[in-house]
Every structure is written in structure tokens, then in C-alpha cells.
């Protein structure tokens, strides 16, 4: 009697699990950014990050994400700049090695576009952030790709002489591309 009652529940849970994508494929994923230096867009990326994403493409609003970025893994394309940006005036990566994003809500914007709202913590400071993204499903993989504009000075990234936004703009476009599998 009891078993009969539990069995459908178990089945339901298994079905729910099967619909969820939650295992990141790091090799196919990326976190990159475009800064503007003297008006020139310059590409960079973070080579190390983790992303705990749970997403059911049928119910994206129920999705959750926690992204951790290893700031020391930054690659600006220039060795001198790599050494500079982990320093105290920029990320101060010794004291604050990780930047993290924790989602609080996912909203549908229509036409396959979604907005992930959440808390972005960098350099000990937490601010509300919203990142727009798209969801693309290919049988056993789901790709979440999107971007948001980070205002670096709000987090004190690049203080002192670097706070001059004519040389390095305040706005940095952060782009993410996460490929997530069921298991």
C-alpha cells in the first residue's frame, strides 16, 4: 500500500530530474569581457570559473545559477595588463580572489529571451545585477548565452589613476556562454 503510494512520486521526481540540466561543460563554456581603452574595444576572458546552474528549459523561470569566477585567471591578452589588473587598484585578487553571481529570479522577456536577476559580488561589494540571456537546447545540451554591462567603478575596479574613464571606460561588457548537460 505504502509502496504504491510512493512509486508515482519517485517516478515524478525522476522525470523532473531528467528535465533538468545541471552539469556544466567547462570546455565549451566561457566568461569573457570587452573593455574600452581610448575608445578601442579590447577583448579579454576568465579562464577559470565554476557555474552551478539548474535549468529546466520548459520552465526557465524556475532556473537557478551560482557562478564563481577566479579573478586570478584573467587573460586580457597582454601580460603586463594581466599582472596589473589583479593588483590592489583593480581586483585586489589576493584579498578577493573570487567574483560571484547568485541568481534570485529568472524572468521571461519574450521571444526566447530571459533575464537573470541576482547579486553580483566583486571586491567585497554586492550589488543587484540583471543579465539578459537566451536558451538554446540541443537534445542533451542546453546553452545559456548572454551579457550584461558592468560599471567597474561601482565596484571600485580600477581606482586611483585608473578611475579616469577617458582612458578606460566605466562600462565593461561581460559576456557568458554556459553549456550545461543533464549529467
Amino acid at each position, binding site marked *: 500500500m505504502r509502496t504504491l503510494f510512493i512509486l508515482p512520486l519517485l517516478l515524478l521526481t525522476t522525470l523532473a530530474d531528467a528535465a533538468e540540466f545541471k552539469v556544466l561543460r567547462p570546455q565549451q563554456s566561457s566568461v569573457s569581457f570587452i573593455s574600452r581603452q581610448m575608445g578601442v574595444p579590447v577583448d579579454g576572458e576568465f579562464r577559470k570559473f565554476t557555474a552551478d546552474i539548474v535549468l529546466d528549459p520548459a520552465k526557465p523561470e524556475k532556473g537557478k545559477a551560482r557562478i564563481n569566477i577566479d579573478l586570478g585567471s584573467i587573460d586580457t*591578452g*597582454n601580460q603586463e595588463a594581466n599582472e596589473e589588473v589583479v593588483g590592489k587598484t583593480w581586483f585586489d585578487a589576493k584579498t578577493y580572489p573570487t567574483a560571484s553571481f547568485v541568481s534570485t529570479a529568472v524572468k521571461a522577456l519574450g521571444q526566447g529571451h530571459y533575464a537573470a536577476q541576482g547579486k553580483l559580488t566583486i571586491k567585497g561589494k554586492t550589488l543587484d545585477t540583471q543579465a539578459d540571456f537566451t536558451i538554446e537546447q540541443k537534445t542533451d545540451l542546453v546553452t545559456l548565452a548572454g551579457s550584461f554591462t558592468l560599471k567597474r567603478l561601482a565596484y571600485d575596479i580600477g581606482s586611483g589613476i585608473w578611475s579616469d574613464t577617458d582612458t578606460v571606460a566605466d562600462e565593461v561588457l561581460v559576456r557568458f556562454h554556459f553549456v550545461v548537460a543533464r549529467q
Partner: protein
Amino acid sequence: MDTRYTHTAVTLHWLIALLIFAAFPLGLYMHDLPLSPHKLRLYSYHKWIGITVFVLAVMRLSWRATHRPPPLPASMPAWERFAAESVHYLLYALIFAIPVSGWLMSSAKGMQTVWFGVLPLPDLIGKDKELGDLLHEAHEAFNFALLGLLLAHVGAALKHHIIQHDDILARMIPFLRRKP
């Protein structure tokens, strides 16, 4: 036969010279600076000057191809004519090669060149660290070749003016002309 360069050639020659005199020491100086907004600004200025030299060099060579320069004095020995022409051709080549190597180096290093912060130059090659380092070496080598050739070029012009008292230098600086 005219014994001086046209106004256009004279103007282009001195404009290019002036810009090179600015860009060359700027390049040497900025290269060793620690990373700072000041350094980023100087790199941009250097690149803007370089691209301006490139544009003027295109004009100069187009003009040169369609307008004969004034003849060298008949008294000039053959080896001097050969030396003068060789140095001129090498200088023409370098005023192209130096800005172009800088432009390509910028692309390879992932820093596009945007002329005066307004006009983006296409990245003719993609981001490639090794190629960027190679182009850096080339840019440097071309510049030291330019320095050597300029010393010969200026030295020869002064020798003609001060020692030989001819009108070679006056071909490029008209008010220095001695004979009517």
C-alpha cells in the same frame, strides 16, 4: 629644368619628417613606461601619428610616381647618385613598412587601431601572440634602420650644403637657394 621639388613634395616631405621626429622618440619613451592611463594615451597618440604618416606616405609616393624629382647636379659622381637613390628608395619603403608593421602588430596584440579615436582601421590579421611579438621585433628593427638611413640622409644633405656649397639641400628647402 626645375631644380627644386614641387611645393606638394616639399610640404609632404617636411610634414612626414616632423611626424617621424615626434613618433620615434615617443615610441622609445612609452615602451618602457609602467602600465598607466598615461601610457595608454601615449600609445594611442603614437598610433594616430603613425597612421597619419602612412596616409601622407601614400600621397607622397603617388606624387613622386607622377612627378619627376629635380635632376641631381651633373658633377655628382656615379656612386653618390647610386647611394642617394638607394637611400631614398629605402626611406620610401620604410615610411610604409613602419606604420604598417605597427598597425598589424596592434591587431595581433588584440588592440585595434582607431585613428584619432574615431576611425577604426580593419584588423587585417587576428589576435596571435607569437605573430604580435614577431611584428614588434620587425617594427623595432625597421625603426633602427630608419634611424641609420636618416643619419646618412641628413648627413649627406648637410655635406652638400656646407662642404660642397651646391643646391642639393635647397631642392627641399627653397629659401636656402644660393644661385639665382
